[in-house]
C-alpha cells in the first residue's frame, strides 16, 4: 500500500485521499451502528441514496438542502480561517431570516430586483451585527466565542419565538399557528427547475463560493484575517488590528449565516415560524471541518450534507433506521478529518514532513 501513496503529492493525500477516506469510514462506522441496532445497512444506505439522489425530484430536493449548507459552511469556514470557532451560525441564521422576512413582507409594490436584494441586505446586516457581538466580546474582553455564540443561539431562538408568537409584533394576525405573514410575491426567489422546490438561491450560493474564496485569498482583509487566525500575536506585531479583524471576520461569518436564513425563507418557506432553522447551523460546523475551511471544498461537502439531510427522512420512512443516523456519519467523518493520523495509519501513508508541521497544516481550526 505504502508504495502507491509515496508517489502522490502531499496535497492529493491531504486534499483528496483523507477527506474521501474519511467519508467512506464515516459510513462504515455508521453501518456498524445500523447492524448493532438490528437493521440491514445495505438496505438503509440504498434508501438513503434513493432519497438523496434517484427518487423522483430527490436530487432537486438535495440541492434545496445544499443551499443553506453552502452559505453556512462558507460562513463557519471563514471564521475558522480567522481562528474563530463560530458555533453561533444557527442563531445568526435565525436572526438573519427574521430581519430579511420582516423586510420581505413589509415592502409591497416594488419589483423583485429591488425587494430581494433589500431583504438579503437586511439579513446580512442583522447576521453581521449578531455575530459581531461575539467578535466584539472576544476582541475586547477575551470572552471565548464558543461560549458566547452558544448563548447567543439560545437568545436568538427566544427573540424569534417572542416576535413570531406575539400578536401585534411579527405574528400574522390571520394565522392560527405562530408565524410571520407571508413575504411579498415579488420577494419570492424564482424556481429554477420546473415542478421542484429548487430556487434561485442555489445560483446565489454558487456565486458566494468564489466571492468568499476571493475575499479570503486575494484581498488585504483576507490576508489580515488569515494572519490573525494563524498567529494573533505575530499579526499584532506586524501592525494588524487584531480586534478589528476579529469583529469583521465574525461579522462576515454571521452575514453569510444570515444570508442562508433569508434565502431559505425567500426560496422555500415564504414565512418564518419558530421552527425554521432545523439544525442547519450546527451541521455547518461539520461541513466547514470536512472542507477543511477551503471555500471551494465547501461545494462537495455541502452537497454531501444536503444529500444526507434529504435522504435521511426517506431512509427513516423505508427502514427501521432513525434519521439521526446521519449524525453518526457526520461525527465519525469529523473524527477522521480532524485526526488524519488515523487514516494515514490505516492506509500506511508515511509522513513526509515533521509531525508537528503536518498536524498544524492538516486541519485549519482556531488556535485558541
Amino acid at each position: 500500500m505504502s508504495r502507491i501513496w509515496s508517489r502522490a503529492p502531499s496535497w492529493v493525500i491531504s486534499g483528496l485521499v483523507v477527506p474521501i477516506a474519511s467519508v467512506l469510514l464515516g459510513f462504515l462506522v455508521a453501518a456498524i451502528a445500523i447492524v448493532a441496532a438490528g437493521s440491514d445497512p445495505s438496505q438503509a444506505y440504498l434508501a438513503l441514496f434513493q432519497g438523496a439522489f434517484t427518487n423522483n425530484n430527490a436530487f432537486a430536493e438535495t440541492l434545496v438542502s445544499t443551499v443553506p449548507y453552502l452559505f453556512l459552511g462558507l460562513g463557519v469556514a471563514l471564521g475558522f480561517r480567522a481562528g474563530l470557532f463560530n458555533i453561533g451560525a444557527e442563531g445568526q441564521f435565525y436572526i438573519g431570516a427574521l430581519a430579511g422576512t420582516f423586510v420581505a413582507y413589509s415592502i409591497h409594490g416594488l419589483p423583485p430586483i429591488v425587494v430581494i436584494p433589500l431583504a438579503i441586505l437586511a439579513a446580512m446586516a442583522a447576521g453581521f451585527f449578531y455575530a459581531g457581538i461575539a467578535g466584539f466580546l472576544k476582541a475586547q474582553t477575551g470572552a471565548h466565542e464558543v461560549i458566547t455564540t452558544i448563548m447567543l443561539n439560545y437568545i436568538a431562538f427566544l427573540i424569534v419565538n417572542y416576535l413570531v408568537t406575539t400578536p401585534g409584533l411579527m405574528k400574522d394576525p390571520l394565522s392560527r399557528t405562530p408565524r410571520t405573514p407571508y413575504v411579498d410575491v415579488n420577494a419570492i426567489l424564482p424556481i429554477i427547475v420546473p415542478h421542484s422546490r429548487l430556487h434561485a438561491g442555489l445560483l446565489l450560493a454558487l456565486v458566494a463560493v468564489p466571492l468568499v474564496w476571493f475575499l479570503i485569498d486575494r484581498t488585504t482583509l483576507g490576508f489580515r484575517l488569515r494572519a490573525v487566525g494563524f498567529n494573533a500575536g505575530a499579526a499584532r506585531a506586524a501592525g494588524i488590528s487584531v480586534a478589528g479583524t476579529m469583529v469583521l471576520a465574525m461579522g462576515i461569518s454571521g452575514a453569510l449565516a444570515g444570508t442562508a436564513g433569508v434565502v431559505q425563507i425567500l426560496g422555500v418557506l415564504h414565512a418564518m415560524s419558530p421552527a425554521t432553522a432545523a439544525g442547519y447551523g450546527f451541521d455547518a460546523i461539520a461541513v466547514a471541518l470536512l472542507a477543511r475551511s477551503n471555500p471551494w471544498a465547501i461545494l462537495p461537502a455541502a452537497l454531501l450534507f444536503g444529500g444526507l439531510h434529504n435522504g435521511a427522512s426517506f431512509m427513516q420512512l423505508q427502514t427501521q433506521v432513525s434519521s439521526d443516523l446521519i449524525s453518526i456519519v457526520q461525527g465519525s467523518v469529523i473524527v477522521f478529518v480532524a485526526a488524519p493520523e488515523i487514516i494515514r495509519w490505516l492506509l500506511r501513508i508515511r509522513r513526509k514532513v515533521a509531525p508537528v508541521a503536518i498536524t498544524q497544516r492538516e486541519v485549519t481550526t482556531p488556535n485558541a
Partner: protein
Amino acid sequence: MHDLALMVVNIRASDIAVFGSQTLVTATPLTLAALGGVMAERSGVVNIALEGIMLTGAFVGFLVAFVTHNLWLGLIAAVLAGMLIASIHAILAISFFVDQIVSGTVVNILAVGITGVFYRTFLETQSVAGPGTLPVWHVPVLGDLPVIGQILFQNAFVTYAMLALVVIVYLVIFHTTWGLRTRACGEHPQAAETAGINVYFVRYLNVIFSGGLAGLGGAYFSLQQIGNFLPNITGGRGFIGLAAMIFGRWNPFGAFGASLLFTASDQVASRAIAFGVQIQPQFLGMLPYLLTIVVVAGAVGRAVAPAADGKPYRKS
C-alpha cells in the same frame, strides 16, 4: 411593579420551601455537568462535550434500567457510559492533538446520533411500563425541619450525590496530590512533566472522571426527573453547566452557586408569570444566557481559565 409587589407580599413559608426545593433539584444536572467541566478543564482539557455526555448517560441509564428493571443498575450504567463516550474526547484531544472544541463537538454530534438510532430501535415502540423514578429519601429528623428539611433532606439519590460531589470534587482538586497534579497540568504542563507527572495520564483520567460526573447528570433526567427517555432530553443543559463552571470560576462551590443562580432565575420566571406579572416569558428565559455572556465577558469580575486550558500538550 405593582404585580411584583403583590407577588412578594403573598409569599408564604411553604412557597419558599417549594421554590428552594425546585431550585436545588433542577440545579442537579447543571452542577454535575459543571463539576465535570471543573475536573477536565483544571487538567487543561476544555470539555464542551458535556452536553453529549449527559445525553448519552440519560439514554444508556434509562435503557439499562428499562431492560433490567433496576434503577440502580441504570444509574451505574449511566456513569460508565458517560466515561466511555468521554474517552473518545480524551483520545482525540490528548493523543491525536485534535482541537479540543472540535473533538468535543464530535462527541456532541455522535451522542445525538447514537441515542437517536438506538432509541428508535429499542425504546420508541415499547409500550410496556417504564422502570419508574428513583425514590425520594426522606432523611429522618432533618427531613422534618421546616423549609430547610423540605429543600435539603427530601430528595432523590442523584441530588444527594450531587451535593456530596460538590464537596468531594472541591477536596480532590484543592486538597489532594491528584488535585495538585491536575492543576499543574492545567496551568503549566511542561513544568508538570519536568516534575515527573505524566501529563497525558492525568488529563485522560480527569476527562474520564468528567464523563462519569456528566453521565450521572444525564441519569437525573431519565431516572430521577421523568422516568423516561426522549430524544434531546438534556436540551442544552450541558452547555449551561459549562457556563456555570465559568461563572463559578472553575471552582466546585462557585459552579454549584452559579447553577443555583441559573435555576433560581428560572423559578422566579415561571412564578412571576403565574402571578400575572407583565413580562414576556421569553425575556425571562433569556436571563441565564445573558448572565453567562455578561460573566464570560468579565463584567462581574474577570473569569480566568487555567493557563493551559484548551492547549494540546506534546511531549518534546
